[in-house]
């Protein structure tokens, strides 16, 4: 515990929805809190989490998501039919709902969780391929994001004790 090298966590964050943004950020901040090294490779839609503007507008969609809780707690069997999820405004509504649960549980926002990662020296790798494919420039990302390819991440992950793909 004391004389060993610190443990290392290497994560891939590949999703850019509000709900899926949390797990890698929770794991990385917790790892850092235990004194571990932690690094996250943000790839494909996951890169939105490092995007200065987009990270403030992550959404969750009720479409194709049967796990979405019912709007009325008293009637758990009455779910919003999937087809209704396609109506304009439904994604915004689901997003508002989820943000409501989060703030009720005093969960930090995605932005705040990322700030906690930065504060805890979590390595934030921005997938170079995604930047190229999606036309995202370095200056659109938060300054702590380090543009890197798969080789860099694999090199980092080779020294990890825990690696997860989210």
């Amino acid at each position, binding site marked *: *515990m004391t004389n060993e090298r610190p443990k290392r966590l290497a994560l891939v964050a590949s999703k850019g929805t509000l709900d899926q943004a949390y797990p890698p950020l*929770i794991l990385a*901040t917790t790892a*850092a*809190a*235990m004194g571990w090294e932690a690094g996250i490779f943000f790839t494909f839609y996951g890169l939105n989490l490092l995007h200065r503007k987009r990270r403030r507008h992550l959404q969750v969609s009720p479409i194709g998501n049967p796990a979405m809780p019912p709007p009325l707690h008293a009637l758990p069997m009455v779910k919003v039919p999937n087809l209704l999820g396609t109506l304009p405004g439904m994604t915004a509504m689901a997003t508002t709902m989820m943000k409501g649960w989060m703030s009720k*549980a005093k969960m930090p926002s995605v932005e705040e969780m990322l700030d906690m990662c930065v504060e805890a020296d979590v390595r934030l790798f921005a997938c170079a391929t995604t930047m190229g494919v999606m036309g995202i420039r370095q200056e659109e990302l938060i300054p702590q994001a380090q543009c890197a390819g798969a080789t860099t991440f694999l090199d980092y992950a080779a020294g990890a004790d825990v690696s997860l793909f989210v």
Partner: protein
Amino acid sequence: MSAVEITSTLDCTGLVCPLPVIKLSKAIKAAAPGAVIELLATDPGAVADLEAFERRTGHRVLARSESNGIFRFVVQRAK
């Protein structure tokens, strides 16, 4: 329980994972070695989490108890 001098209290009631452990870690970093921090939490996951935290970090959990849904941990900073 023997009289351990509590250096500071960290109220994490109403907070969910990962906040109690993150706040505890920050408080430990800010404290002197040997300092004793009292952590109050309502997150039921904190019971198992504090065991893992102790195992992984070496900071000792000197006491743990529960009353009225509030978990109380007494944690001593190692090193």
